[in-house]
């Protein structure tokens, strides 16, 4: 595994993301509510540049919401810019296909530097 510098802490506020590269591997690093996460920049569908997509929320509609639409998880969903498949940044799970879970790369902070291990 190689350590890759992502950004200074202040440069990646909650809701922000940044794609970094290590060799041929591209990884998206996200700040969700003050915690950092990293996913491969490759959608499991047609291999689109997932982490270049918008960070947003999503909609649910369950018995708990009385079968009404509710907007939830703002800032923790990334949407692939190619075909709009959604992923939970904090788990790597694809919302459309429960069997798909992307690998997660460890992210840490050393001093003021955010570092991802790729």
């Amino acid at each position: 595994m190689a350590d890759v510098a992502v950004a200074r802490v202040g440069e990646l506020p909650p809701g922000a993301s940044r794609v970094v590269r290590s060799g041929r591997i591209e990884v998206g690093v996200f700040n969700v509510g003050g915690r950092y996460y990293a996913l491969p920049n490759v959608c499991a569908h047609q291999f689109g540049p997932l982490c270049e997509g918008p960070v947003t929320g999503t909609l649910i509609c369950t018995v708990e919401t009385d079968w009404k639409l509710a907007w939830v998880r703002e800032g923790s969903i990334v949407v692939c810019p190619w075909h709009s498949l959604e992923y939970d940044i904090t788990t790597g799970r694809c919302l459309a296909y429960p069997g798909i879970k992307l690998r997660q790369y460890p992210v840490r902070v050393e001093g003021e530097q955010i570092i991802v291990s790729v």
Partner: protein
Amino acid sequence: MTGQPAAADTRTKLRDVLIVDVDVHIDDHPAALAPYCDMPWRRSLELQGTLPQRYLSAAGYSPQLGLDPPFPGGLNARHTSTAAQMREELDALSIDVGIVFPDHLMLMAQLPRADYAAALARAYNRWLLERWLTVEPSLYGALVAAPQDPEGAAREIERYASHPNVVAVYLPTSAVYPLWGHRKYDPIYAAAEAAGLPVMLHSVSAVFPAFPFNLEQFDTALARHTISHTFAMMANMISMVTTGVPVRFPRLKIAFTEAGISWVPFMMWRLDKEYNEMRREVPFLEDRPSRYVRQMYFATQPVEEPENPRHLTATIDVIGDDHVLFASDWPHHDFDHPRQVFDLPLPLETKRRIMGENALRLFNIPVPTRAKT
């Protein structure tokens, strides 16, 4: 390909295969077309060009009921506005050659004024040649034929047929009324057949009292989009076969786009079944309807993604791998990367046909010398 498939190729790379994409879209913004439009409609486009545009929805230009709000977290619209931009984007997708279709004018069949619709088609065709086909030699185009003015469309075909990068005639299919089998369109077919240009049907979702109709009953774009393009293709294919278009114009090539391919075996078998009982209604058909369908061409996008890809290769086998054409639909939201088709478990010769060779033959395009970058 017949019978059991030959060994699937897994070694050849996408970049090593010629890729012809039979459906890419260019941004026919009214402000872009205005300078190419005859008066008085140039004034109209100049005004239309100052109005805010939604994705494939502009009142009086690409009319839609526009039932859906911008959906929270929903689709993002992409546009390709110059030939250089298109070339760059196709390079990134490993595509060598693109066949260009409009964006907004896909909805033009709904426009009630024939003189306006014909002026839009003429403006588009001029703009297509001047800003796209003569700028980037790896782009080829389909002339827009306004269904509202078949004689005018036939003149457009005659005017541009000799241009080497004009390779097809686009039949706007969304909500066309009457359907494309009607005898009123014969001048278009006669001109296209004489010019050796295939006609290509391409629809788009719209709520309108014509095929694909009654879509307003669905409250999601998912539901409407599931059937809109496909129903439009099915309705027009049935119309063309049962009025005898392929019989009256035996050398006319007919291609269907943006409906996937899994509807085609259904149509072949369904039409044949009905033909058993009701042949006397269509005595001009000299054989079962599927024999005529088998002569038509089908673009892959949005290509089906079954859990077992062999189910899709079996579908290709029914249609015939010499009549299936790769299409991406770039830059639209539901485009397919060429890999989605290329990676199907098929022998290399079949992949080469579908990804490019069939299209070169159908559109009479010379093998491109330009290597993709």
